[in-house]
């Protein structure tokens, strides 16, 4: 089991009711962690419209996770 810090933004933050939480997880990838936390952010599948970053670096949904990582879940962006 790894300890991961998860950051939620915008819609995900509103649904989770917090902008950050520490979770214990055996997820190997960002996608596995996202799916485990479905009840928090409320989204079935992030691929194609959501983004993810690990330790402040843009990542993808196959990026592996390590103990102590900080994972940022980004709902669809809308700048400008």
């Amino acid at each position, binding site marked *: 089991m790894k300890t991961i810090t998860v950051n939620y933004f915008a819609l995900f933050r509103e649904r989770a009711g917090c902008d950050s939480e520490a979770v214990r997880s055996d997820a190997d990838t960002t996608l596995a962690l996202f799916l485990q936390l479905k*009840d928090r952010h*409320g989204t*079935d599948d992030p691929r194609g419209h959501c983004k993810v970053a690990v330790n402040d670096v843009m990542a993808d949904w196959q990026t592996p996770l390590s103990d102590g990582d900080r994972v940022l879940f980004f709902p669809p962006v809308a700048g400008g």
Partner: protein
Amino acid sequence: MTRTTRAPQLPTRDVPMAISNVDIDTTALREHLFDHSAGALVTFEGWVRDHNEGREVLALDYEVYKPLAIAEGVRIIAEVSERYGVRQVLAVHREGSLTLGGCAVWVGVVSAHRDEAFKACRDIIDRIKVELPIWKKEHYSDGDSGWVNCERCASHAHG
């Protein structure tokens, strides 16, 4: 956030992307681009419009994850500047609450000739809109509100 960031409010030659929580000073930004070897300045501004997809909009909130918004903006500006060979780019995006007519984003590009300034400015705003971690919540005249582009995030009730 677990990390404290000191995001600059004004873009510079070294860090040409900024996130501002106050009104964007377009006059000052333009003056920062003055350059006797540049023949062309193209600017883009995005304003808060009174309608979107058929609904009457009253105001917007922008949420921005600054560390990555700035880093990604700087990367985009560097890539586009090199591609077109422009002399300088500065860009600012707002965070926080804006009302109708407010300036949400400003991009300015100076170059020797106009062709590359137009192309670079267009590419940069196109990429800022889809690549930066920025979210827009619209507030409508009927009292409703919603995050733009989030219709594909299934609601919590169905999770």
